């Protein structure tokens, strides 16, 4: 009887804990959305921020976040792809490979602020790129590389070895076999991984404060010449992102509506993350279904 009661209590506690975790999340999301959604308007999303007066928006920051995300993915995807292929296909089983894997693991667990500071030291100061989108994208690449590499390696490994052997036995090179046969099969996993990593990159701030900078310069959204200094596409301009903006106005913001702006911006960030999450699932499933279906292409 005693042990039965004990059992009942313990199970109840476990259930209560699980429910509390759900409540915590529901509270977080609910609070952010409830607080933030009322501030979101077309004007808020498109107009520039203001430093000292109320009524500023997050237009440039939103653009910067998306632009940086795009650049980061463009830089980090090919490198991760190469590294992922190396690890799954070419890495010999020896000490060097162990060291390489360890290095990637260490890189993935480095605090993002350290990665950001390194980017600051090397690119902003040493290479004199200054606070710029380019420096920011490179720092985010460092931050993104280990996760994307691991994801690509796992996706490649999950493809049946039979497919690999089929290609090789026909006299194809390993490189072509991987690129033309294995990678298309691994695509659902890779796409899911990229989209999830996009969510992480989109919300990252610590690595950007000292690389992409904390100011959103006035950009002219009608000037799309990437070499012009007022163009939004210019790689060398400092670019405060949405996440950095939230941090900044909360640490040193002096505009009267700082809380409202952060609430709105936080809601936008959360919605973006939710969208990335849903997109990852949807795209992954969609691609998977498309590939395994026996229907005509």
């Amino acid at each position, binding site marked *: 009887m005693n042990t039965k009661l004990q059992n009942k209590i313990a199970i109840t506690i476990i259930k209560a804990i699980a429910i509390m975790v759900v409540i915590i999340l529901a509270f977080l999301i609910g609070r952010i959305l409830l607080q933030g959604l009322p501030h979101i308007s077309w004007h808020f999303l498109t107009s520039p921020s203001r430093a000292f007066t109320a009524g500023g928006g997050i237009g440039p920051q939103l653009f910067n976040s998306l632009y940086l995300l795009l650049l980061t993915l463009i830089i980090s995807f090919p490198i991760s792809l190469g590294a992922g292929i190396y690890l799954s296909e070419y890495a010999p089983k020896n000490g060097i490979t162990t060291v390489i894997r360890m290095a990637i693991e260490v890189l993935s667990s480095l605090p993002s602020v350290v990665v950001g500071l390194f980017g600051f030291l090397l690119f902003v100061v040493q290479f004199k790129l200054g606070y710029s989108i380019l420096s920011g994208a490179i720092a985010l690449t460092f931050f993104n*590389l280990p996760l994307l590499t691991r994801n690509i390696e796992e996706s490649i490994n999950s493809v049946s070895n039979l497919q690999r052997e089929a290609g090789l036995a026909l006299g194809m090179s390993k490189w072509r076999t991987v690129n033309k046969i294995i990678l298309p099969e691994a695509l659902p996993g890779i796409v899911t991984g990229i989209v999830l990593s996009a969510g992480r990159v989109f919300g990252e701030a610590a690595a950007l404060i000292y690389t992409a900078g904390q100011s959103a310069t006035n950009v002219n959204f009608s000037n799309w010449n990437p070499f012009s200094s007022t163009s939004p596409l210019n790689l060398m301009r400092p670019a405060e992102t949405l996440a950095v903006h939230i941090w900044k106005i909360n640490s040193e913001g002096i505009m009267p509506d700082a809380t409202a702006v952060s609430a709105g911006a936080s809601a936008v960030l959360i919605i973006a993350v939710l969208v*990335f999450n849903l997109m990852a699932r949807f795209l992954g499933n969609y691609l998977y279904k498309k590939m395994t279906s026996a229907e005509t292409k």
Partner: protein
Amino acid sequence: MMDKIKEKIQNNSRETRQELRGRILTYCAIGLILIVVISIFLFVALKGIATFTQDKASLKTFFTGTNWNPGILGSDGKPLVGALPMIAGSFGVTILAAIIATPFAIGTALYMTEIAGKKGRNVLQSVIELLVGIPSVVYGFIGLTVVVPFVRDHFGGSGYGILAGSFILFVMILPTVTSMTVDALKAVPKHYKSASLALGATQWQTIYKVLLKAAIPGILTAIIFGMARAFGEALAVQMVIGNASLLPTSLLTPASTLTSVLTMGIGNTVMGTTANNALWSLALILLLMSLIFNILVRWIVKKGRM
């Protein structure tokens, strides 16, 4: 005909060249990552050591001193680089967050693996994925608007401090620790459980005496991973900790962590000065701690296998 084949298999072909190109490309990619890792350590280490080699600060002061004012020379003519308040702050929030998160993570993981049906498991899986996805500045903002006032009203003080930081970090590391604990619990062989249940043990007895015991190395690894994440987290903590480089006397007084001082300070100091170098020394500690957490995890995994 005969000779043509013979010739072909002795000579290079399109495939040999493709293979060479592929190898070179992948080697370059992996090499680049290695270079990044090595340079991060090299650069941060070089900058971090300068405080002691160039500016002649003493290591002892750094680890035990409580006066952080690196721009100024102390009475012994050496810079005031007492980093103990930040070190204590970092460890404080990390350990406290881990202490709060562990029961929650284990409880949730047990619920997911042992109690919940498929539906409950899926719900919690989604919850965990969403918690991971919330950006740290958003946690910081919630910390400022919810946790700090909550701590102020219920515990006293200004609300800023180690307690508020720990609460935020607790939620931030919860998903990591939980999902790794789930993996650890799943790795326990099924027959352990069925044997225990067949002997008449209750579900809780089985969980407590068999399952958790067998999963200890995995759970420890999960906690350490969580701590590594908490130790390195910068902005969310910086926003709620109060940023006072004083040795924390209670959980409710403003304090600082290695990361918070770094994020605040780098922009306000000039490259190459003692004040700046001292900050890099803090970054070096962060780097080394991250390495130590890594080594610890490896060690536990190795031990768990034996």
